């Protein structure tokens, strides 16, 4: 499977998790962290979150909104939504392929 965001390096997976979280609507950083932790059962530190957010913003995948009490929400852009859909389709196809291979090997 060809990675869709190779330039993100080790922040590719956190970036994808952030995009998935924002697909539900705008969220500020802390809400994203909570969402990711609840969804994956794995911690996301503030350092990782902001390293990924900075890359996503730079790529135009997300955009900042007006800050409220120092909390700045982010939202998915059209480019970000399209990229997320591409990545999820790729992952889904890859997962389907894996399941097919498993079934073939088990039968």
């Amino acid at each position, binding site marked *: 499977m060809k990675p869709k965001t190779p*330039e*993100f*390096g*080790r922040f590719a*997976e956190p970036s*994808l*998790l952030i995009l*998935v979280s924002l697909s539900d609507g705008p969220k*500020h*950083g*802390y809400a994203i*962290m909570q969402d990711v932790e609840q*969804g*994956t*059962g*794995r*911690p996301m*530190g*503030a*350092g*990782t*979150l*902001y*390293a990924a*957010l*900075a*890359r996503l913003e730079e790529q135009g995948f997300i955009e900042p909104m007006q*800050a409220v*009490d*120092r*909390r*700045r929400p982010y939202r998915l852009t059209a480019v970000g939504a399209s990229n997320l859909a591409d990545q*999820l389709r790729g*992952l*889904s196809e*890859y*997962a389907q392929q894996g399941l097919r291979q498993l079934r073939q090997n088990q039968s």
Partner: protein
Amino acid sequence: MKALLIRLYPARWRARYGDEFAAILEERPLGPFDVADILLGALDAQLRLRGIGADTQKGTGFSMSLRLGGAAAILGAILFPAGFALSSVSASDDPFPGFALLLAGTVTLLVGLIGLSAFQARQHPRLIWTAFAIPALGTVMSIVGLVGMGVVGDRPLLAGLSPWAIWILGVFATVVGSTLFALATYRTRTFPRFAAGTLAIGSGVLLGVFLVGASGVIAGVDPMVPVLVLAGLVAFSVGWIALGWTAIRLDQPAIATA
């Protein structure tokens, strides 16, 4: 400490993200995992803004992830008892290989503790910081003791304590830290309670033997002591390995199963 951590980021980064980042850090208590994560984030920001860029870094790079913490916990769980056994067996011969192995195990377990403490620190920040600080201090004491043994031998080194006494106190600081970490993990249920409970029992037995031995209640070498030490070491090791293994499995890419 939070202000200091933010100051580690480049000024340009702080101008853009500083306020919201500070707000996030105020939302919940920070544990050793979070601090390590922020230090790496600051390093990443410094490199990126200097054009050196960490963009091409792979997941195998230096990162305080669950995977690294899990691997360190497993490695430490092997090195620590191995060093303990070797230094006990060869005490009258050349104890340094065993001591060095034990020190390596102490440092590795400290890395493991940092990597695995993210969730526990959300609920029990003081307990986790204490669990980190005691073995961190113990590691320094172990290094001082080890160097002292080579320099002054058996003569008192600090506060009337011999290098060996400083060394052994440092080693048991790791056991104390492991006990506290096990308690926090057991209470938060982040990892299987069996693993945390086994670690707590192993550490508790080792501490008990150490305290009883240090108090002089047991005269001479009680035949039960080696048995208890062995049982404690096995439980200590099994507990850390189970925690490390669970962490590595937990860190399998969650999105790959989507």
